[in-house]
């Protein structure tokens, strides 16, 4: 699905953050040894969603509401809830999560870049979340190396 309005972006971001939080909640239950790490991701997801919505709604203006911010920004269907069944090993889970975080980071970076023509607050928070997802990817890679 093509995202070409700020409203559509905010809806999609909620979906990304909520669905990836659900994934990490499942993983936290399944992999006790990484429970704290995965739950910290869940907490961070909730914070990301709140911060982005706060930035969007608090700087809401004619500029943003007019909704011409985005062109060629696509909602990636591969971000929808993945299947984590009983047989999935921890290393497979980590590899999948690394790929997922890369896709999400790229999405946020692109969204930040494309919203630079408008109010500064939104691209700033999107860039910040992209950096957080990058850090999360690094953390997951380290965990994979140690698995």
């Amino acid at each position, binding site marked *: 699905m093509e995202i*070409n309005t700020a409203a559509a972006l905010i809806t999609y971001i909620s979906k990304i953050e909520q669905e990836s939080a659900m994934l990490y909640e499942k993983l936290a239950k399944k992999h006790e040894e990484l429970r704290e790490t995965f739950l910290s991701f869940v907490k961070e997801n909730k914070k990301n969603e709140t911060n982005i919505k706060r930035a969007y709604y608090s700087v809401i203006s*004619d500029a943003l*509401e*007019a909704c*011409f911010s985005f062109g060629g920004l696509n909602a990636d269907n591969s971000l929808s809830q993945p299947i984590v069944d009983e047989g999935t090993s921890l290393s497979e889970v980590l590899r999948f999560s690394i790929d997922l975080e890369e896709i999400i980071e790229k999405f946020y970076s692109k969204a930040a870049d494309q919203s630079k023509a408008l109010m500064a607050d939104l691209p700033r928070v999107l860039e910040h979340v992209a950096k957080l997802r990058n850090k999360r990817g690094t953390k997951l890679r380290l965990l994979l190396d140690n698995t």
Partner: protein
Amino acid sequence: MVPLWFLPYAVATGNTFIVKPSPSDPISQVRLHELMDEAGFPPGVVNVIHGGAEVASMLLEHPDIEGVTFVGSTKVGRHIYKKCGETGKRVIAQCGAKNFLVVMPHADLDQTIPSMMTSFFGNTGQRCLSGANAVVVGEDDVFYKRFVDSLVEAASQIKVGYGLEEGIQMGPLQSKDKKERGLGYIQKGIEEGVTLRLDGRKIKIEGDYPTTCFLNPTIFEDVTPEMTIGREEIFGPVASVMKAESLDRAIEMIHSNPYRNAASIFTPSGKWAREFEYRVQAGNVGINIGIAAPMAFFPFTGMKDSFFGTLHGQGKEAVRFFTESKVVIKRW
């Protein structure tokens, strides 16, 4: 949205407030006031009265009403200002506009064009902060061509349709009459001999809806400030591109228009931005911003035919508007 430029300040400073919505668009105000009732506003603090010119006249003459705020056309705003002068009411009348967006050489088009899309075509051009005329400064024909081509390309990609669908970027005009008005200006532009680069009369909308009120983005090139479409407020998705040899000339063009609601400049140069900011006589000035909409803590400062009154809406000026000053001199 518009009554909220005034209503919160009025109520917060101890006034009661009457909203008379436009007869063409009363529903949002009814809902807003239902929500206020739900929130527990005491009866009579905020009130809605529906009606046309007759009701407005009654409000203008009512002795218990101390002040009037208005957003609408310059013709009506001028009438209200005059009438309130006679009846001794204070006035904020925010009126029509013809906003210029100045594009300096070397402006970053990747950021300028999206801002301009928002400005020209956001709300289908039906707002007093909409861009109307883009003035490209300089004699660099390559830059000019690149700008116009990018503007036309971006505008032609705008998804037009039912405004409550998330992916739709531009909805219909407010009524069939408003569309007729827009069509009239497009015809006038053609008669005045300018180049129609993007013809919004060729209706292309997403979904199966009647085209009664739809008009697609329209762009004219080679417009001058004296032409009807370069001079008058269209209040629709019609953009005019003009050329100016220098920033001085661009500012002259802005000052030749009676409206002065907003003006913006797109430039990477701090020098040009500063010069524009200081010299342009417009109420709301944007630097690399297509819609120079002030946040609630700043006044909405239109000038000339875009504003009648002394104090503006929003910010400290609105607080002063809705309160009285009193001086007490004491000796014991």
